[in-house]
């Protein structure tokens, strides 16, 4: 027995927890890619290295990135939400009506957040009460929420937003730092804290790794998942606030098709779609990586659909690389 127990353990300076060690190297890999893309971009376009241009570029992805944060937690917890973009639309409609009714900015924001939260609650209840796989539930609510938006809005445009509302999606806090971007930074820190520094985060990993064992350890798994769905809904509501303010108007097609690019960000960030693994840092880096790739290609006027080929290939390539490396290594070390 002794000889088994005292096998040499790889105890590095890093916390000796297997998964975090693996993920740290993943993040390093992502960071490296981001640096390479940054370098290539600055070589390829003279317009790239301009603070204002970089700042403008962030508008293209921060709203999605904001949703990616709670969605990462949900996916770590072995669930998924495909309805986020539809929640954004429905929340935007609610804000539009609030604005039309003469509500002030605070109230409008509240309406958006409230509807987002409610949508998250609906998803969460359907998943936890009826024990239906979330991918199926949210395929349904994806149509349902956007459908409701169509019913509510029809072909009208809601655009009576007060002046002060515009700040949220268009204003700057300091120099080139937009309100949206700063908010994303703050949220990233908050979610980093929530996932990596609190009981709640620890439970999220525990459930994602082994829901049964987590349940047997006295964790209320259903409630935890419900809370995460609500959180995703709420933050989608927030993203809706930002997006609506940036566009200055609401239509039912708002944020159409965003769900897949948000999930792509999360997966690219090293969050395992099977649950249990992933970090906020990884997601944040992936967000910037994707943002830089699309902005860089945009400066070269590469059509968006070609970019999507590149993003798709990047997604598969990045996930496949560690697997391939392992295979290759395994082959080399074999006699």
């Amino acid at each position: 027995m002794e000889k088994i127990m005292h096998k040499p353990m790889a105890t590095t300076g890093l916390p000796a927890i297997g998964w975090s060690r693996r993920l740290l190297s993943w993040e390093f890999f992502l960071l490296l890619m981001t640096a390479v893309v940054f370098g290539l971009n600055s070589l390829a376009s003279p317009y790239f290295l301009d603070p204002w241009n970089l700042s403008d570029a962030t508008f293209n992805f921060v709203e999605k990135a904001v949703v990616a944060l709670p969605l990462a937690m949900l996916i770590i917890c072995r669930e998924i939400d495909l309805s986020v973009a539809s929640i954004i639309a429905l929340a935007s409609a609610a804000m539009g009506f609030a604005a039309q009714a003469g509500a002030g900015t605070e109230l409008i924001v509240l309406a958006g957040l409230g509807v987002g939260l409610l949508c998250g609650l609906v998803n969460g209840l359907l998943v936890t009460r009826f024990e239906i796989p979330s991918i199926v539930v949210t395929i349904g609510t994806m149509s349902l929420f956007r459908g409701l938006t169509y019913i509510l809005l029809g072909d009208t445009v809601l655009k009576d937003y007060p002046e002060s509302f515009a700040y949220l999606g268009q204003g700057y806090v300091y120099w080139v730092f937009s309100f949206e971007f700063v908010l994303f930074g703050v949220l990233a820190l908050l979610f980093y804290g929530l996932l990596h520094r609190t009981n709640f985060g620890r439970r999220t990993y525990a459930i994602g790794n082994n829901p049964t064992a987590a349940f047997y350890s006295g964790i209320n798994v259903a409630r935890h998942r419900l809370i995460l769905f609500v959180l995703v809904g709420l933050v989608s509501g927030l993203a809706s606030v930002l997006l609506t303010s940036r566009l200055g108007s609401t239509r039912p097609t708002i944020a159409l098709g965003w769900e897949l690019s948000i999930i792509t960000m999360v997966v690219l960030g090293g969050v395992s779609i099977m649950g249990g693994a992933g970090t906020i840092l990884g997601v944040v880096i992936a967000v910037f990586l994707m943002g830089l790739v699309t902005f860089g290609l945009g400066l070269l006027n590469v059509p968006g659909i070609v970019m999507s080929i590149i993003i798709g290939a990047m997604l598969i390539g990045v996930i496949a690389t560690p697997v391939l490396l392992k295979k290759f290594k395994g082959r080399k070390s074999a006699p």
Partner: protein
Amino acid sequence: MKKMLQNREILLAVLILAMILLVGMITPDFLLPSNLLAVYNDTSILIILALGQMLVILTRCIDLSVAANLALTGMVVAMLNSAYPALPVPLLMAAGALLGLLLGIVNGALVWKLGIPAIVVTLGTMSIYRGLVFLLSDGAWVNAHEMSASFVSIPRATVLGLPVLAWVSVLVIVIMVHFTRQRRLGREIYAAGNNPTAAFYTGIQVGRLQFVAFSISGLLAGLCGYLWVSRYAVAYVDVAAGFELQVIAACVIGGVSIMGGIGTVQGCVLGALFLGVINNALPVLGVSPFWQMAISGAVIVIAVIANSRAERKVGRIILKKAALHAG
């Protein structure tokens, strides 16, 4: 369970009939046999794709790339036809199916050989395939007058009262029934999805079957590429955009379990028909276009809740008296 499952499918069939009758009460013409055939014909492509998707879901995977696959093969076939109008249509169909198969093989190989989760793989290939349509066509359309007469007319030619398009789907259904019941490979797909460990113990290679399922799904998507393009007599980048979700919804409504191992051809076909009838009835009923999406969303949610009841694990039954009840 057998009884219950049949019940569920019968329930679905009854629901579809009720829906048809209801629509018929408002618009009697809807009940004409010719119209019902037309509705079936209109649903054919969805049925074919849903059957391919079912196999993939049975093995605990998902294929998000079917619609993009369809768009790409459709574009290739249409471009081939407009460049070489002399090529016989059956050859083009075969080419489409073959290309679709190839695209499915790419998905399957990534899942099997690299063990990347199917949802990640097909999320990626979905963008890639769709992007390739653009690169290939340079964004241009292939229009009706650029297609040869036979290319456009074959799927609509009526044989024994039914358009060829519908016949193709009937053929696919028959083959799939045979495949899932009478072929070793088909049965092994169920086994692999139901319990991968047990499957491995019995010498069934789960990864290989996932590969097979993806390949078949790809092949059928390729076949549909031609059918779609010729039916609507136009090919462009956005063909069937977002259709993958309808396909998955058809499976889910038809009782295919997203957890794998459960699902039947008849259920899947009924699920597709359910959506098909709704899609065809709403315009006829003059339901406000703004309501249509919410209605189909609500239908999916309700169907899924109903299925979750039927699918609930029975667990072991230790007590004799309880066993009698369940039996």
